[in-house]
């Protein structure tokens, strides 16, 4: 305030008074008042100036706090805002058979996707889209299911595999569909459809439960971009190899989430490729041989343990699962009484029936309970000493004089009833357990059952009951508590073919690194061997060879074969028979008919392949299962593809009609 201001103001007062027309009542008081008023004004102006400075100081402190004290924090938040890390899905590894035939691969296709967040009325948008692009009710149903399942998803596919024409039509009308976009994605494809479906398995949509599991395994981050993973078969078992490593893209995005530019890229690493021991041609021959029948086949290369074919019929089309299976297909598969989703080869347990007999015979020889010359006179039944119960042979009236060789060739039950009694259940359990019965084989696919090879301890534990001698008798012919899976039977047959050297069965032969191209071999390390006297092996093998020769139970199936096959037929009862009741196939409903079984290896002197076949409710092993083996062996040994057998082939001469 300038010193001149006061006199100036005082001078102005007179002028002011004149103009305003106010006549002060007491002049002196007024002047004092106005001087005081001016002072007051100036004081208050100073107060205001102080207020201004104080307020600006406050702001400055705030700026200091934000820009200096918390700068790093806010800078990080700004970067967080700006940079989105987008996961980039790796390509899934391929699955190839032993000859390089593709069993599972990926292809790129256009999908139509909807971002629900950008769409106010989903139904209206889908209706509008349906005018340009073919959208079926099942597409809508699946879309709705995906919406319900995953709330965190940015975009949800409504149609996959768009044709070029559909892509063009959409693009031309794109402005009409805010929130919808076309995206190129990789899809899993199984070019062979049902063929080997139970081996390959399938991938499926990554669900909440899968996520929780991945979280627990600590690999959830690697799945940040994935919306599917292996759910069954090799796709599930080798998930870690097949999946690969997720890559990341650091993208600058604006507030609306639109990508502005890519800042940094870390490429994904493709999954490793699986090369199988399985030969798709053998698989195909085997599956064709089954026709429409239910059942399973497992073929193993004895020298390595490599699985040459693994069949479970009926199969399914794994392609149905790739984009999330639609409800009607799912219901159809689930409600099918033939249970196409059950992997019978691994998880189906069946009484091994007479296919158990070669192992019993070997046990008798090895443990000294039988000599090759030991002969019984078979009356057609077996009676335990001191009991009236008759364990019947499958052939009424019996087989007459039967030694070890003949017991296998004609599949004499009475012979093995007695042998089982003489061996005792625990000896039997211990010796035959070496062939893998009663425990999982460790094949590289999930869902395997262990089967059951009973023992005293097992019965005590399971039922809290003592073992009775009578329990032992039917175990001798592969019935009773005896249960095995087709893969176990094949495994046991392979051990037999391999003279007691055990190779773990495995489907995958090598895993090829997508990065280095290096192969990791999952190979023939014999993980066990047990000594069997060669002469005993030869005796059993010779008998098994004669099974497929005239007079044997599988003679008809191998009529005219130019190579020697060592095999054994089997028939597993589905329903128990009362004493003196006669089983009559024609009078029994199909699902109660006997299962047909057959185990074999060929060529007998230099086995290339060992297999086990089960035909559910197929009747006799010789007539229903052995012809399938013939077709497979003809292909493997001779390279010949035979015609599929007719399922209703009339049953055969006496010898072959048997067990």
């Amino acid at each position, binding site marked *: 305030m300038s010193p001149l201001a006061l006199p100036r103001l005082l001078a102005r007062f007179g002028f002011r008074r004149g103009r*305003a027309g106010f006549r002060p009542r007491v002049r002196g008081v007024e002047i004092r008042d106005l001087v005081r008023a001016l002072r007051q004004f100036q004081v208050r102006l100073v107060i205001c*100036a102080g207020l201004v400075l104080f*307020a600006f100081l406050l702001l400055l402190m705030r*700026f200091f706090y934000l*820009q200096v004290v918390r*700068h790093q924090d806010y800078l990080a938040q700004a970067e967080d805002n700006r940079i989105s890390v987008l996961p980039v899905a790796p390509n899934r590894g391929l699955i190839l058979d032993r000859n390089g035939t593709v069993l599972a691969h990926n292809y790129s296709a256009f999908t139509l996707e909807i971002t629900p967040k950008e769409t106010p009325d989903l139904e209206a948008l889908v209706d509008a889209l349906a005018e340009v692009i073919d959208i079926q009710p099942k597409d809508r149903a699946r879309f709705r299911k995906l919406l319900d399942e995953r709330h965190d998803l940015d975009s949800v596919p409504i149609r996959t595999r768009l044709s070029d024409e559909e892509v063009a039509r959409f693009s031309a009308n794109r402005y009409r569909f805010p929130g919808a976009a076309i995206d190129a994605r990789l899809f899993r494809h199984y070019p062979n459809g049902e063929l080997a479906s139970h081996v390959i398995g399938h991938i499926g949509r990554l669900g909440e439960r899968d996520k929780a599991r991945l979280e627990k395994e600590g690999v959830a981050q690697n799945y940040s971009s994935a919306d599917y993973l292996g759910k069954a078969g090799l796709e599930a078992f080798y998930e870690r190899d097949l999946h690969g490593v997720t890559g990341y893209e650091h993208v600058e995005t*604006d507030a609306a989430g639109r990508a502005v530019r890519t800042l940094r890229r870390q490429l994904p690493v493709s999954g490793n490729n699986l090369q199988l021991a399985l030969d798709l041609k053998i698989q195909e021959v085997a599956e064709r041989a089954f026709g429409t029948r239910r059942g399973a086949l497992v073929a193993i290369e004895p020298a390595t343990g490599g699985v040459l074919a693994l069949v479970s019929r009926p199969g399914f089309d794994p392609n149905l699962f790739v984009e999330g299976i639609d409800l009607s297909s799912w219901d159809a598969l689930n409600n099918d009484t033939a249970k196409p989703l059950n992997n019978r080869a691994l998880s189906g347990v069946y009484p091994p029936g007479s296919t158990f007999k070669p192992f019993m015979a070997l046990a008798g020889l090895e443990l000294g309970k039988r000599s090759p010359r030991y002969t019984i006179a078979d009356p057609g039944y077996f009676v335990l000493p001191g009991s009236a119960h008759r364990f019947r042979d499958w052939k009424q009236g019996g087989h007459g004089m039967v030694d070890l060789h003949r017991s296998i060739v004609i599949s004499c039950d009475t012979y093995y009833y007695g042998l089982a009694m003489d061996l005792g259940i625990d000896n039997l359990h211990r010796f035959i357990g070496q062939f893998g019965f009663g425990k999982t084989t460790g094949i590289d696919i999930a869902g395997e059952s262990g089967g059951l090879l009973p023992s005293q301890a097992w019965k005590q534990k399971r039922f809290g009951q003592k073992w009775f001698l009578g329990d032992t008798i039917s175990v001798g012919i592969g019935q009773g508590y005896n249960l095995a899976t087709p893969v176990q039977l094949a495994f046991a047959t392979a051990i037999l073919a391999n003279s007691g050297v055990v190779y773990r069965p495995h489907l995958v032969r090598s895993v090829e690194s997508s990065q280095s191209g290096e192969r990791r071999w999952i190979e023939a390390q014999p993980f066990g061997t047990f000594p069997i006297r060669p002469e005993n092996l030869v005796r059993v093998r010779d008998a098994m060879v004669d099974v497929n020769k005239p007079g044997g139970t599988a003679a008809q199936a191998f009529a005219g074969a130019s190579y020697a096959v060592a095999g054994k037929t089997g028939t597993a009862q589905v329903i128990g028979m009362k004493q003196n009741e006669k089983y009559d196939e024609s009078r029994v409903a199909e699902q109660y008919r006997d299962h047909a079984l057959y185990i074999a290896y060929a060529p007998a002197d230099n086995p290339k392949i060992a297999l086990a076949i089960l035909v559910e409710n197929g009747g006799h092993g010789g007539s229903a299962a052995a012809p399938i083996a013939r077709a497979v062996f003809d292909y493997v040994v001779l390279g010949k593809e035979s015609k599929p057998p007719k399922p209703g082939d009339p049953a055969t001469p006496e010898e072959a009609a048997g067990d």
Partner: protein
Amino acid sequence: MIERLLAWLGRHFDPFLLAGVAGLLAVGLVVLYSASGESLSRLGAQVMNIVVALAVMWAAANIAPQQLLRMAVPVYVAGLVLLVAVALFGDISNGARRWLNIGVTRIQPSEIMKIGVPLMLAWYFDRYEAILNFRNFAVGALVLAVPVLLIAAQPDLGTALLVAAAGFFVLFLAGLSWKIIVGMAVVGGAALPGLWAVMHDYQRRRVLTLLDPMQDPTGAGYHTIQASIAIGSGGVFGKGWLNGTQARLDFVPERTTDFIFAVFSEEFGLFGNLLLLALLLVVIGRGLYIAANASTLFARLMAGAITLTFFTYAFVNMGMVSGILPVVGVPLPLISYGGTSAVTILFGLGILMSIHTHKRLVQT
């Protein structure tokens, strides 16, 4: 000839105010270019706004305070009538009735009252200068309260607060008793719960958001959080012109208007903020100086009110953007994009110049 014309044109300009204004306008254009995503058309529009506003300032500077004095009552009354008209016939936009369609264009009468209220009060106190007593302050309070309440009811809390502040500054500078000020503060504090009860939901949310922005990070708190991130991430030296990611990637809302300070602060940092505060202080300091040296009570009150209102704009805006005040729609004077606020503010600064230069003319 040209020199004389320039002299005539510039004879009512105050060089200090003009320098401060020019500095702020320049900063504003620089930031706007970045905030608008390097939009030259936005920049051009703002240049036009500024040209108009400068012309208004020139005109205001050339109106003698005595003439202004005579305009006080008509302007106030007209503003009041328009406010009532808005309440009755106004257009609704964004849920508030603020605009009045007068055929040719839409006007916002509350903007008039930013000048109209202090003008009226200054006129009133000037008129009763000699016998100023409690009754005059009561009348003054009424003159202030009616338009403020009308504006608050629109609802437009930000403008109501600014008008109330402008009026209060006049009352305060005219010598409102400390007892009343303290009394009102106490009563006001006690009445806060009542005020809370009559507040609109969105107004309550803004207050709650100020207390804890993270309470609603995607909704009401979003503005505050993103602005704080912008300012904080700028650091001491800023990210550099055209390099502010928060602003340029759309994270800062309203980034050319109410939140332009966040853009400036992100790109120019603490040093930029200091420069901005300094420029604002030049204008405010000069305004207070002019008020202190004004020759009539009317001029003193007007000059003080205009200056302090200008300060209030700046403080409320920067306070809200930096998260120490609730979000109210107040632009940063001379920086934010927009014609109306530029015109109102430069009109006020023109009056300041007029007060200063006319006094000088009278003396010499």
